[in-house]
């Protein structure tokens, strides 16, 4: 009995000291943060890849007297936080990440402060178009991502194909050959899982085939979408894409090209650097970035999926926040962020310089493709994008799993889109 009481007491004392220690630490950090706010202070909410280094931030603070606090938040969670914050009328941060797909709803929800951008910058950064709604620039793109094609030259040669594919038909023929010669079992890497990347797959496929995805009234362009869906369906039916692509994450599907289990990919620009990184890629030196194929020849436009940063409307330090955005997206910073965070510059001038300086290896058609960027949304990204995309990827996923025909998948998407566009 005595022993037990003693042991219990010991437990209590131990935990109490632990918490007391923690408690005091907490108040310490709290007060030090308070005293540091001598000048202006802003918070910057980004995913890990957008976090600038401490040195870079210090330079900014020295230059402007503005303190920057970083809130590193997972990409998916940023929207959730913004939404919850906005529902309470609170700015979760002064400067926030704005993905291209969010801009429509952020505009409708009135969360972003318009930015002033010079014409010079507008021509240097073609992706600004995506973030411009009603002639107002709502966010500045800081890292670029556009659809670029990659193919494994060694595997193509092994299957007896000597030429780079020019059209989507070439790709299909080449893949059949790769499969029939037994070179690669599932040569085409395609995202078919029920997730955002699958919707964008359909968009860029239709866009590079026919140059159109959406009609002016926001509805789906039937001919173009159907053609893309049937193309995808062919790939699935002939087992040119791996069965696991239907359920594993889109990124895993893309990564098959780095693992050597796929020979052709149209995907994120980041694969330029991934294809030269020995930790991620087991077929270094075999992957070449090329222009995205089109219907009769190479496609004349490609879709961009850039990320930007914007200033929140509820922010109390808008001027300081705008200064930060300007600094962060400046040409000089883009060059340095490429070095420290391997961000792909949104300014074509910087991209060109980096490729010329040899800082981006194995660039292939990267720069050429960057000049073809344009937005498939005639009226900008709609405010109901998330809901529409969800309907799209689920329909495509069902088609991939064999429950829907391409027609049924189209019908489901089209009716969902139409309903949303009407609202």
């Amino acid at each position, binding site marked *: 009995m005595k022993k037990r009481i003693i042991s219990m007491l010991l437990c209590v004392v131990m935990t109490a000291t632990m918490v007391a220690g923690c408690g005091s630490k907490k108040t310490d950090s709290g007060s030090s943060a308070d005293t540091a706010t001598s000048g202006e202070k802003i918070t910057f909410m980004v995913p890990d890849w957008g976090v600038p280094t401490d040195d870079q931030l210090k330079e900014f603070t020295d230059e402007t007297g503005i303190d920057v606090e970083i809130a590193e938040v*997972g990409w998916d969670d940023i929207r959730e936080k913004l939404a*919850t*914050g906005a529902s309470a009328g*609170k700015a979760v941060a002064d400067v926030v990440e704005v993905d291209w797909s969010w801009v429509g709803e952020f505009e409708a929800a009135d969360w972003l402060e318009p930015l002033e951008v010079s014409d010079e910058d507008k021509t240097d950064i073609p992706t600004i178009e995506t973030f411009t709604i009603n002639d107002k620039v709502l966010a500045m793109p800081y890292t670029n991502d556009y659809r670029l094609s990659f193919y494994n030259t060694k595997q193509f040669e092994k299957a007896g194909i000597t030429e780079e594919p020019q059209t989507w038909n070439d790709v299909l023929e080449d893949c059949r050959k790769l499969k029939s010669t037994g070179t690669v079992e599932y040569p085409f890497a395609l995202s078919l899982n029920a997730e955002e990347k699958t919707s964008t797959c359909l968009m860029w496929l239709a866009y590079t085939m026919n140059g159109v995805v959406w009609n002016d009234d926001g509805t789906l362009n039937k001919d173009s979408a159907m053609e893309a869906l049937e193309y995808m369906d062919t790939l699935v039916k002939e087992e040119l894409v791996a069965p696991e692509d239907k359920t594993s994450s889109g990124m895993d599907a893309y990564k*098959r090209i780095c*693992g050597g289990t796929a020979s052709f990919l149209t995907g994120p620009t980041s694969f330029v650097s991934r294809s030269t990184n020995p930790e*991620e890629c087991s077929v270094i030196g075999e992957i070449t970035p090329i222009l995205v194929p089109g219907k009769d020849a190479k496609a004349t436009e490609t879709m961009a999926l850039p990320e930007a940063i914007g200033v929140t409307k509820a922010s109390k330090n808008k001027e300081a926040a705008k200064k930060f955005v300007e600094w962060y997206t400046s040409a000089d910073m883009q060059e340095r962020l490429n070095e420290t965070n391997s961000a792909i510059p949104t300014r074509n001038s910087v991209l060109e310089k980096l490729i010329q300086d040899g800082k981006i290896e194995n660039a292939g058609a990267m720069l050429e493709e960057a000049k073809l960027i344009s937005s498939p949304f005639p009226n900008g990204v709609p405010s109901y994008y998330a809901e529409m995309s969800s309907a799209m990827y689920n329909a495509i996923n069902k088609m991939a799993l064999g429950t829907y025909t391409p027609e049924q998948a189209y019908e489901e998407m089209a009716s969902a889109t139409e309903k949303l566009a009407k609202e």
Partner: protein
Amino acid sequence: MKYMKKIVYVCELLLFLVVTIGPFVWAFVLSVTPDNAVFAPTVKLLPEHVTWAHYGELFSPDSRRGTAFFSAMLNSLRAVGITLCIGVPIAAIAAYALGRMEFKGRNLIKNLLLITMVIPVMATIIPLYRMFAAGEMLDNIFWLSIVYVSSYLPMAVWLISNYFATIPRELDEAARIDGCGEAKTFFYVMLPLSYPILISVVLIMFLNTWSQFQIPLILASSMETKPMAIIVSEFMTKDSVQYGLIAAAGMLALIPPAAATLFFRKYLVAGMMKGSVKG
């Protein structure tokens, strides 16, 4: 007969071990597999090359991911500490009142408390956020822990008060005749007798706090408050899925709760062997 019993026990043991530890062994294998070999199409169970890079990244002091991970572990531990120090006493005294005292509205209070067990986090999180935002309580481990406590109280109170109810009334009557007041009876009779359940409640709170995800996701975004589960989920971002790193972090994240269980098991086993009444 005895021999048979032993064989059955060993079979049970093996099954238990395979089911419980198997997935962890597999996770460990993944944590030492290079990223480009994770989905390699082979039937070999072990990777050709073993890499410790994932652990290296977590332990290296210059890697942002590593420091973030360990500071998050610390945050989780702090939340656990605060939750236990607040949650267990409150639960114990409330359970004492509900389990050993007669008063008006007792059943009502008990039912109103228990019924909250069915409330999912999603149903309260948005108003909670608004409340916290208005009160400047966001990004604060103390308030975060209080929210955890509110979600554990019904179960903890119910478990403890049921246990209290099993302690024979004669014991506290005897204590009262010896001149103990309510407080003394509680501390010297009830608590020592019921520490197996108290330890179980401590464990339940520890483990549940350890894996909290949805509540801190909304209520905490600063590096100083984010718990481990959130940091680990951030290893899986939009463009890179670092399975090896997630597996490695998952393995490391198991250490504190495993250590706590090992530490407390003595008391749990002791309580079992002595029987709860032979104070």
